[in-house]
């Protein structure tokens, strides 16, 4: 694991059309990479895991990616 691997993972997440995620942060830790951020569906999180496993089989990584909530707002912002 080095800077180059970190950069390759970051680019793969954006450039692979099955993923196309620019909003995932790749952080190096003692245990390997940690992927953080939010995506629009559980399927997209699964696709990220699949991609990193396939393209970087030697890289240990943890996933801390949530699915963005899509509920109606409970209040408006008053712009007085």
């Amino acid at each position, binding site marked *: 694991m080095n800077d180059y691997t970190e950069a390759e993972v970051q680019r793969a997440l954006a450039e692979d059309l099955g993923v*196309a995620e620019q*909003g995932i942060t790749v952080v190096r830790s003692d245990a390997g990479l940690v992927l953080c*951020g939010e995506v*629009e569906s559980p399927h997209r999180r699964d696709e990220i895991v699949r991609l990193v496993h396939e393209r970087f089989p030697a890289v240990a990584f943890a996933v801390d990616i949530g699915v*963005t909530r*899509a509920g*109606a*707002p409970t209040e408006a*912002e008053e712009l007085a």
Partner: protein
Amino acid sequence: MIRIAAVGDVHIDRDVLGRFRPALEELPGQADVLLLAGDLTRHGTEAEAKCVATEFGGLGVPVIAVLGNHDHHCDEVPGVLAALTDAGITVLEGDSTVVDIDGVRLGVAGVKGFGGGFAGRCASEFGEPEMKAFVRATGVVAERLGRALRDLDCDVRVALTHYAPVPDTLAGEPLEIYPFLGSYLLGQAIDSAPTALAVHGHAHHGSERGRTPGGVRVRNVAHPVIKQAYSVFNLAPEHVSPPAPTGI
């Protein structure tokens, strides 16, 4: 009062269809118009745009959008635009639209925008052709946004972009990528007209609130930032000029 709903970066594809719809059914009771601040699709295919049309079409309020960088990725912009406009969604790029809300004319001017950075740390139109083209592209779209805002004949003006016009709403993003997230030129364009509110997306790790140097309120409505289907901004009467008296 004008009630403006807004969200950006929804990145719709088949796997997201229906996720926003329950909240969107409530929207007409909460807002008079919905603004979509770009990155409507996952990577800019016509098929994804049709999913956007399904999700955000037929809401019962006007829907006004700009495209984002993701919407350009597959070079299918004409198909993307056709799918959106066929669903009644107004897509702006250097132009504007006016919506009548109970006799008050809301004007929205929009562009996708582009990068370049912010005062003191911005790119210059200097050096290699690629660098000059990058900075020039932002200058051109910012100029179009400014002109569209100034030319609007309305009671209240709102600017809609994908890229950020100020660094305030990027707080949380790595400083190193600010030049790819927005440009001060967009802020300058917004400040060139009496704009009541500026709305943008693009910065998923940014923050919600900021102001242009001229004092215009800026809101980052990227979906991962607002963490709800849309935000609603109520523009109080002081932002809304009374309708001009008609001639006698």
